[in-house]
Structure formats: structure tokens, C-alpha cells
């Protein structure tokens, strides 16, 4: 476990906000900062960041992806760690950037970036060694694993471990945990009918648990599932897990109007 004592030894974390948090859910960014500071990190948010480049990458546009990756490298390579509240963007930085520069003189720098980049929850648990966070949330919760988090980064036990320590929260697993919710980046707008059916099935699986709250660690899945729930008139509350862990889940949930 890292020493959380004196400021001189505080790890310097660059927060990669992710474009969806930046645009749709700034409170997740603030929750991430709160959690990281509580854990003894010094947090900075480099201003010259926008997106990790996944939309371009998954569209086969390697040139634009490399340009965006370079922008991330330049903004973040001086920090001790890069942390993002998303398994998907982090999977991009950790797994795919080095592939994209496999034959390139920048490879070593991208490998170094990859090695110190972490998804928020797994950073707290695996790197900082935190096993409990003081927070409370009254509700019956179910948790959706994002595919990139689960399969590219092996994030599965960590969020559950931290949720188990939250006062008033009980977790029920939904059926078909490893099945995609239908977001898939550009997939969801290119093939809405298929994506919509996948989302509907996930919403039904969540409803079957009887949970009043759905949590996940990726804004893409969260926007997709909250959007589907609202369309179907399901009033489950939807939050990013960081909001609950940071005791900041008192604002309107995702897709919920202001009364």
C-alpha cells in the first residue's frame, strides 16, 4: 500500500476525464477527483485533453487515432499515473495505443504510458491497496460490467469489493453479467435496432433483480441503459459507481429531470 502521508510522497495523478464524462456527467469527474484526493493523491486535470480516439479507432481511421493518441501522450506522460473513470477509454490507452505504434519510434513512450494508466476503481483497489471507502447510499443496487473493463482490464471483483463497504447498499447481481449492453460506440447509432434489443434485454435483466439503482463504471453503457430505461418508462436510478463511492449520488440520476 502506498504511503498516504506526507505531501512530498503523494503520487501525482493526471485525470483523464473522458469525453462522455466531460460532456454529459461532470459530477463523475468531480467524484473521481474526490476519491483520488481522499486516497492521498495529488490530482491534476490537464487542459489539453479531449478524447482518447476510440470513435476513430473503431471506425478504422488509424491516422486520426494516432494523432489523438499523441495528444494524450503529450498531455499525460509526465504524471506518475493516468487515471480515468472508464474501462473503455483506459482499455484504449493501455491495450490499443501500443498496438497502434507497434512499428513506431514512439512505441517505448506509449508502453510507458500504458503501464501507468489505470481505470479509476481498479487503481484505487489494485494500485493504492484500498479495500474500503466510507460512503453511504440507501438502495438496492445492481452492477453492470462494461465489456472493455471486464475483458480488457479484468475489472470485476474491485467494484464489488468497494460497493460491499458502502453503508445501506445491497448488491444483487444481474443475469448475464458478461453480456454486452449494446452500446459499442458507433455501433449503437449504426445498428440501432440490434443495439436497442441488446439494451432492452439488459434493462430487463436489471429489472429482474428488483434493484432500484443501476451502477456501472463506463458512461457509454450508462447513457445507453439510462436512455433505454427512460424510453421504456422504467424509473430505476442510474449512476456512475464513482458518484456512489464519493457520496455524491444525491444529484439527479442519469436521464432524470429536475423536479
Amino acid at each position, binding site marked *: 500500500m502506498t504511503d498516504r502521508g506526507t505531501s512530498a510522497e503523494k503520487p501525482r495523478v493526471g485525470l483523464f*476525464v473522458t*469525453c462522455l464524462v*466531460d*460532456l*454529459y*456527467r*461532470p*459530477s463523475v*469527474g468531480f467524484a473521481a477527483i474526490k476519491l483520488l484526493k481522499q486516497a492521498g493523491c495529488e490530482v491534476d*486535470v490537464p*487542459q*489539453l485533453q*479531449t478524447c482518447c*480516439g476510440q*470513435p*476513430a479507432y*473503431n*471506425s*478504422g*481511421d*488509424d491516422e*486520426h487515432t494516432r*494523432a*489523438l493518441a499523441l*495528444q494524450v501522450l503529450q498531455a499525460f506522460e509526465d504524471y506518475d499515473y493516468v487515471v480515468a473513470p472508464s474501462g473503455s477509454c483506459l482499455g484504449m490507452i493501455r491495450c490499443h495505443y501500443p498496438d497502434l505504434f507497434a512499428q513506431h519510434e514512439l512505441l517505448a513512450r506509449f508502453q510507458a504510458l500504458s503501464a501507468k494508466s489505470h481505470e479509476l476503481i481498479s487503481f484505487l483497489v489494485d494500485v493504492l491497496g484500498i479495500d474500503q471507502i466510507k460512503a453511504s447510499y440507501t438502495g438496492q443496487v445492481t452492477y453492470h460490467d462494461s*465489456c472493455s473493463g471486464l*475483458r*480488457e482490464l479484468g475489472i470485476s471483483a474491485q467494484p464489488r469489493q468497494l460497493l460491499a463497504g458502502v453503508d445501506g447498499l445491497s448488491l444483487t447481481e444481474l443475469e448475464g453479467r*458478461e*453480456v*454486452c449492453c*449494446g*452500446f*459499442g*460506440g458507433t*455501433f*449503437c*447509432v*449504426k*445498428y*440501432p*435496432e*440490434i*443495439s*436497442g*434489443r*441488446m*439494451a432492452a434485454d439488459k434493462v430487463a435483466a436489471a429489472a429482474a433483480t428488483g434493484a432500484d439503482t443501476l451502477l456501472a463504471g463506463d458512461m457509454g453503457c450508462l*447513457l*445507453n441503459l*439510462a*436512455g433505454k430505461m*427512460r*424510453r421504456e418508462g422504467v424509473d430505476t436510478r442510474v449512476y456512475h459507481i464513482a458518484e456512489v463511492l464519493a457520496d455524491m449520488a444525491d444529484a*439527479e440520476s*442519469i*436521464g*432524470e*429531470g*429536475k423536479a
Partner: protein
Amino acid sequence: MHPRSKFFEANATQALRQPSLQAALKQLEQGFVAGRAACYEALPEFEALRDRAEEVLNHTLENLDAYLLEYEARVIETGGQVHWASTADEARRIVVDICNQAGAGNVIRGKSMIGEEVGINDALEKAGFEVTETDLGEYILQLAEEPPSHIVAPAIHKTKDEISDLFHSRHRELGYHERLTERSALVAEARQVLREKFQQADVGITGANFLIAETGSNVIVTNEGNGDLSSTLPRVQIVTAAIDKVVPTLEDASLLLRLLGRSATGQEITAYTTFTTGPRRQTDADGPAEYHVVILDNHRSEMLAGELRPMLRCIRCGACMNHCPVYGRVGGHAYGWIYPGPMGSVLTPVMLGLDEAGHLPNACSLNGRCATVCPVKIPLPQLLRTLRGRQHRRRLNSRTARMGLSIWAWIALRPRLYQSITRLAMSIMALLGRRQGRFRRMPLAGGWTRVRDLPAPQGSTFQAQWRQRRQQ
């Protein structure tokens, strides 16, 4: 089969609205997926076997020319003949010629994806032969005049009721009048009909799960035993296979067999695993007088030379489609050709071209579950991305999509500009969506709002709020 991959979107929409298909697909997922999971649990060395299989097949592909020649030499030594076909067309011609020379009337087929790939049945029927499928699933499809929808369970999309009707109407001419509803009774009737076909057949055409270089043998696995009858009863046997089916040794084949049944149907081993080597010898009790192997390339050597080479490791187990959320919703016919699901989304564009099959690499959420279950560790999402890259470079994707992407990237590469545009846009959206918390419709986001609401942003962007806080 006339490809319909171009119409993937329409095919998929139709499939989503077909309750019987949806019911059939649910069963598949529960049956095969649960079966594989149980096998996985029960075999501690499963992951080690996957690693080993990947290694063996990479080595084989690295030396494919040598192993193919070794295989050919062994087949010739045992009295068989090897025919090389670089295209589907050539393969059809070779098979028709062999049947002609054999003076055949009736031809029976054991299930084979290569047979489907080259369209053997059509070619033979056009040449005047009577062809009968002997795999139950394929037989059902032959009666129904439909293509397969799954590489292991070709008639998975058909319900029992549909099969009852089909047999009732098509077997009447053979003297069967009762409409059967029991599974076992349907199977028994099909067996009876097929038994006669087996006895009349002059030529039997089967596929091959593996070709073994060191012995010149071919291996087929079935659960019905039809493959064995197809290869032993007729006077002439034709094995149709592709260049990627060869493995160096018996040992390698047994390694892959351990993975195949478990990954495909959740069986430790299929009911029948048959090794055949050459024609009947003088001392043999049975077997064909002539033994031919037709080895097909059909764009595989192109794959061998490029980034898609890992796809040639495929052992056709079907696990990728069983675990694919898209296949599980739309079924195999939506993909428009004989190879569906993730593996088909790589193979079809290679074999039919990206113009025909351009949808397939894109109709995937890249969730990656297929790659985690593939017994030979093919990085399917990565290969689909490679194909998307080819589409992008050859400007095959829609102009709107390309333009949207370019504009977005141009702005995203200018963070200050990006941040001022997004701050403004999000503030307006937040204001408009404040009360409802979501939008039911949104210009330029029709793909999103067609099936779900778009949650409204909270307010200004994170970056704008962060800057404000720091300035205070």
C-alpha cells in the same frame, strides 16, 4: 447460395421481429453456452490447451506449404488422389468431373462447410445428379430449401413445429402420411428415409475437420454417424476441405479434438470421431474403391499473407457465434451467407468482397466475448477492426460517416476550440433538457433516439466547471 450480406440491416430487422426465431436463438444460448461453461469448469487445463492449440496452428500456418505437400504425398501413398482448387468454381468442376467419371446417379453428402462455401449441391443438381444431405439439420434445410444459419447446428432457427410440417408435406410422396410431433419420431422417420439413400448412393461427399499430414488421414466428427456411412458405403468417396484444415500430426489433431467438442456443443467428445485414410485395401472389410480429396484455397492464401492470418486457425466450433450478442439476436441468416457471427464477419468480406459484405465487420459492438471463448484464441474484434481499416482506406464507408468523423477529429485535435464549442453546446442542451432530464428526439442523433432516449447533460462541461472552480 446467392449472397444477401448487402441487406444485413433489413435482414436483421426482419429477424428481430420473428418470435419463433427469437425463441430458437434463446435456446441455443442456454444450451451451447451453458454446455461450454460446464466443460470449461471441469477441465483445469482448458486455458493451457488453448495456448498450445494457438501455438501448434501458428506453427502449421508458418509451414503450411510443407505440411500440405506432406499430406498430399501420404494420400497418394495410400492410393488416394488429391485435387487442388484455387477457386470455388474450380472445386465445383472437379467434384462434378469425379462424379461423372464414376458414372454416378445418386450422391450423398455429409455436412461440410466447404461444400456450402463452394455450392456443391447446386452444381451437382445442375449436372443431373440426385443429391441428398445426410446430416439431419442439413437434410431439413434441403427439404425446406434454406441455407444453414449456424456452422455446427445448421437448422437451429427451425422450431420443432416447423419441422413436423415440413416432413409431413415432403415425406408424403415417400409413403409417410402421419404428421409426427415427437422429436424421436421425427428423427426415426428421417433415418428411415435416409437409410435408403445411403444404400443407393454411388458417391459420398464429406468434409474434414482436420487433415493429418503425417498419415494422410482426414478426421470428421459428428453426432449422428452419418459422416461414417457417407464415407464407407458409396463406391467413391470425395473429401472436400480447405488448405487451413491440415495439421502436422495425430497428436495435434487430438489436442484440437479435445477443444472442439467442448467449445462447440459442450461435449467432451462428439458421438463419432472418424479417421479415414485412403481407399479400401484388400484386407479391409469395407470402404470406398476410390478416395479423392479436393483441397480448396478460395482466398485463404491471401489471408495467410496478411494481417488476417490468425483467422486461418479457425476450427469451426461455432463458440464465437454462440456467445455473440448480435448473432444471438439476429440469427445466422441475417449475415446473408453461409458463415455467420464473428468468424463469418471476418471470412465473408474476404471471400465475397467488402462491397458485398461491408456491413458485417461493422455490425459488432466489439465487446470481445467471442475472442475470450475461441478455442484457438483468434483475436476476432481486432480482425474486424482490420477490415474496418480497409474499408476506411478504400473509402467504402458512407460519405456522411467519413465526413462526420473527420470534422469531429479535426475539432478534437484542437482542445481549446473543442472546449469552447462543447461548453456552449452542452449548456444549451442542459437547459433544454432540464425538466425532462432526457430527449426523446435529437437532430443528428436519430440512430440513438430511434430506440432510446438521450439523457440530457448535467450542465456545462466538466472542463468549463473545473476552470471556473480553479479561478475562484
